[in-house]
């Protein structure tokens, strides 16, 4: 019985650890969605590297979100942005293409994939500032 339990535990960690990408700065897998992660410079540097690889680091809205995180903002969209980019980056390093990594990360965050999904990942002030670069369905009311 103990052996079976250990095997199941090993299987669980093999799925949620390296395969999903490991982060040193916030809790693993689904716990991360429920606990407030520490926003660290290491995490932000990883996000910048990920956005740079996608050719999206100089995007104004992304820069504004990074700036908010560096200034200590921790509203839900700020944390969603941080978590989304870290998790998406880990999934792409594990071999997923962008589209699969993006959609799986949204699902992990409980955010439906659709025209309004950026409204949960970018702060409303940032969407207002760069409204022409967002689908109108994501514009704040």
């Amino acid at each position, binding site marked *: 019985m103990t052996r079976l339990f250990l095997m199941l535990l090993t299987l669980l960690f093999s799925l949620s650890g390296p395969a999903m990408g490991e982060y040193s700065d916030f809790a693993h897998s689904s716990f991360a969605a429920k606990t407030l992660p520490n926003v660290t410079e290491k995490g932000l540097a990883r996000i910048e590297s*990920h956005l740079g690889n996608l050719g*999206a680091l100089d*995007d104004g809205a992304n820069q504004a979100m990074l700036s908010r995180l560096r200034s200590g903002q921790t509203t839900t969209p700020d944390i969603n942005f941080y978590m989304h*980019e870290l998790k998406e980056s880990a999934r792409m390093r594990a071999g997923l293409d962008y589209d699969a990594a*993006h959609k799986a990360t949204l699902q992990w965050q409980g955010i439906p994939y659709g025209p309004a*999904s950026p409204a949960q990942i*970018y702060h409303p002030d940032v969407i207002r500032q760069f409204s022409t670069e*967002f*689908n109108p369905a994501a514009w704040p009311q």
Partner: protein
Amino acid sequence: MAAMNYFEKWLTDLAQRQTMLLPKAVRVAGVRDKILGPRSDYAKIDVLCEPADSLEIKFDLPNLQEAQQHGYLDWAVMGMLDVLMTENTYPLRNVRLTIKGADIDSIKSNQMAFRHAGRNAARNLFEAIRPKVIPST
């Protein structure tokens, strides 16, 4: 000494300078398809560009209502003008632009994506009319 208002001077110059001439009608596509991290951009337009006596803009596409709902066509035209007015020595102002198609992604499309698609279409127009060197046989 009063500082020159360079922005006003630049605008006046752009509006008054002689136009370059479009030698023939050309149909071009313009595309914006870019991943931006937590979101993506997508827009595509199909434009017929013809010589004219002044700037004329026409919309002739099956999904006109959908494309106009959020001003996407206006943004596409502005994107074309961004390039038509500044890319070459003389602005290309005497041209009839008929937007014949607009491909809208319900999730990824936005106004700026259409502006980028317009810029891409204008660059493709200049590429299409650029004199080509014919290799000698």
